[in-house]
């Protein structure tokens, strides 16, 4: 297929439509996504000569991928709400809030470790919605609180929400999870080290960072490096366990005398921006409604379920074969000769999928809360309503963008885009891979959707340039992950929760420099890996 400027512009129209509608017209992803789908459909038929059989097949393939991701998303949403509805999330937060008066440790505890844990179990802006009010309740200035929660959770989004974004990258690129995980883990680890420091810097600049550099590095290194290792073992648990490790490490640090002397506490308070009245600033005065271990019981269940399935011989294979979703396709091609070879869609084991584990843990959690008398009558109805309200819009956005992405790939539009970019920028392009990921997350408010839109594109560019597809895909998702700190949809969640509606610009002004700096650092590191250190990685 010959690349020409007209076709390149046409191929970029679906993505441009989403960008313009979301950024220019402030449309939500659930409205812009379907519009992008229609644009892709029209361009595929009229310009790229795709027939309707081909489009039917690509939609069916897209469905399997959407199902794969949504299964995790809905399971995570259910589990989070089971704990939240009983006051469990508040109790977990209150336990950690009570541990120290040192502001930098409090910030690391709630604004970095706890929001990472929340990202591990929920996503959808929950870390910002829950973390920012807690920080204000601890005395942090509202704009700083929202910015810190955004920065503190952003690094871990790829493996967050039970690795939904990682799953989407894997599905969009066709690369295996085992091959992708170490490279994604590497970039995310690097991002984590910086995000820990940036969160403290956002609170009190270099003064706070100098004061808190040791605990910041201890916490961020322990969280990031553990995430790298866990991601290679079980990606779904990486962010979740890394957040727990961060909370434990910070809890241990909060017992260290040197951080709890009167002078250290005062110095930490004078280093940054605090508010005089957390209540009028819509902070949250949290209450411990149940013991920590009880609140955490559904998450303990999740860990036990995963360990049981992975380590008891035969269980995983048995579950995998119980019920499988997999579709087979013949070869088909467009009128311009772009061929999609015969093959199968990805395979989804209905009972062995990460989403299934989340459903099991949710039901066990309900049973535990019920046995302890915490689960009251009427809570199930409230739970279903919260889950449905929380999941429908994001699922529409994800599904429509996944279907759009598959139409683009199978009609040759993604190849056209990739070839144009590779021809124009050549070997300089990899520096910008994370920035493309950031752009996707900024537009769609989601690392998952960023990977869906740009994952296949990045791999095609890598193939054309003859560089590693694994490293390119990993740099893409790292960019998508950190782009969450800029995404208007997440910023609005934070500002609206703490009564800062209309001041989103101040928050974005604070997170923008960290996001762009980090994206460029990741881009340069990626370029060095692609062209110097890891040239032989495929």
């Amino acid at each position, binding site marked *: 297929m010959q690349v020409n400027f007209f076709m390149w512009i046409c191929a970029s129209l679906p993505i441009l439509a989403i960008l313009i509608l979301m950024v220019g*017209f*402030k*449309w*939500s992803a*659930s*409205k812009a*996504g*379907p*519009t992008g*789908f*229609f644009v892709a459909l029209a361009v595929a038929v009229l310009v790229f000569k795709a027939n*309707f*059989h081909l489009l*039917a*097949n690509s*939609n*069916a393939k*897209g*469905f*399997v991928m*959407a*199902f794969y991701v*949504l299964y995790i998303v809905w399971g995570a949403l259910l589990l989070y709400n089971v704990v939240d509805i009983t006051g469990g999330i508040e109790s977990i937060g209150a336990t950690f809030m009570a541990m120290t008066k040192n502001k930098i440790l409090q910030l690391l505890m709630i604004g970095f470790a706890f929001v990472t844990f929340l990202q591990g179990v929920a996503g959808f802006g929950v870390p910002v919605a829950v973390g920012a009010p807690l920080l204000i309740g601890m005395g942090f200035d509202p704009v700083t609180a929202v910015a810190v929660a955004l920065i503190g959770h952003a690094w871990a989004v790829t493996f967050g929400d039970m690795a939904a974004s990682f799953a989407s990258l894997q599905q969009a690129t066709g690369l295996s999870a085992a091959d992708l995980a170490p490279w994604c883990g590497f970039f995310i680890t690097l991002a984590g080290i910086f995000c820990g420091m940036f969160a403290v810097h956002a609170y009190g600049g270099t003064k706070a960072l100098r004061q808190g550099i040791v605990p910041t590095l201890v916490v961020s290194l322990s969280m990031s490096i553990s995430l790298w290792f866990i991601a290679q073992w079980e990606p779904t648990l990486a962010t979740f366990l890394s957040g727990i490790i961060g909370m434990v490490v910070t809890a241990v640090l909060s017992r260290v005398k040197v951080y709890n002397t009167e002078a250290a506490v005062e110095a930490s308070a004078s280093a940054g921006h605090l508010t005089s009245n957390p209540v009028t600033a819509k902070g949250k005065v949290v209450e411990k409604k149940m013991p920590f271990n009880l609140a955490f019981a559904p998450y303990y269940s999740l860990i036990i379920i995963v360990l049981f399935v992975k380590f008891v011989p035969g269980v995983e294979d048995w579950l995998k074969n119980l019920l499988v979703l997999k*579709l087979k396709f013949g070869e088909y091609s467009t009128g311009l000769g772009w061929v999609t070879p015969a093959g199968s869609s990805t395979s989804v084991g209905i009972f062995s999928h990460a989403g299934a584990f989340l459903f099991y843990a949710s039901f066990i959690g309900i049973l535990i809360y019920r046995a302890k008398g915490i689960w009251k009558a009427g809570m199930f109805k409230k739970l279903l309503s919260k889950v*449905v*309200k929380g999941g*429908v*819009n994001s*699922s*529409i956005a994800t*599904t*429509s963008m996944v*279907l759009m992405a598959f139409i683009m790939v199978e009609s040759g539009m993604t190849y056209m885009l990739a070839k144009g970019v590779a021809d124009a920028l050549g070997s300089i392009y990899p520096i910008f891979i994370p920035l493309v990921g950031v752009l996707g997350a900024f537009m769609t408010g989601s690392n998952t959707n960023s990977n869906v839109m740009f994952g296949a594109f990045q791999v095609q560019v890598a193939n054309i340039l003859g560089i590693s597809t694994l490293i390119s895909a990993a740099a893409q998702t790292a960019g998508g992950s950190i782009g969450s700190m800029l995404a208007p949809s997440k910023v609005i969640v934070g500002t609206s929760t703490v009564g800062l509606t209309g001041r989103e610009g101040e928050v974005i002004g604070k997170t923008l420099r960290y996001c762009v700096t980090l994206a460029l650092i990741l881009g340069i590191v990626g370029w060095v890996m692609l062209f110097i250190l890891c040239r032989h990685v495929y």
Partner: protein
Amino acid sequence: MSGKKSSPVLLGFALLGMLIAPPLLLYPAVIKENVALEVIGYLVLVISMLIPIFKG
């Protein structure tokens, strides 16, 4: 468009349509070369995609 009130039930049906049409209508239609089923599949998919644009 942004001023219109969103309908959660309608959006739920739209999502269901997006998830049902490709595997249960479009895919079997291609396999069995059934044009009528394919037309129905596209209709369901297009209507499901239009709902969020106008009611989202």
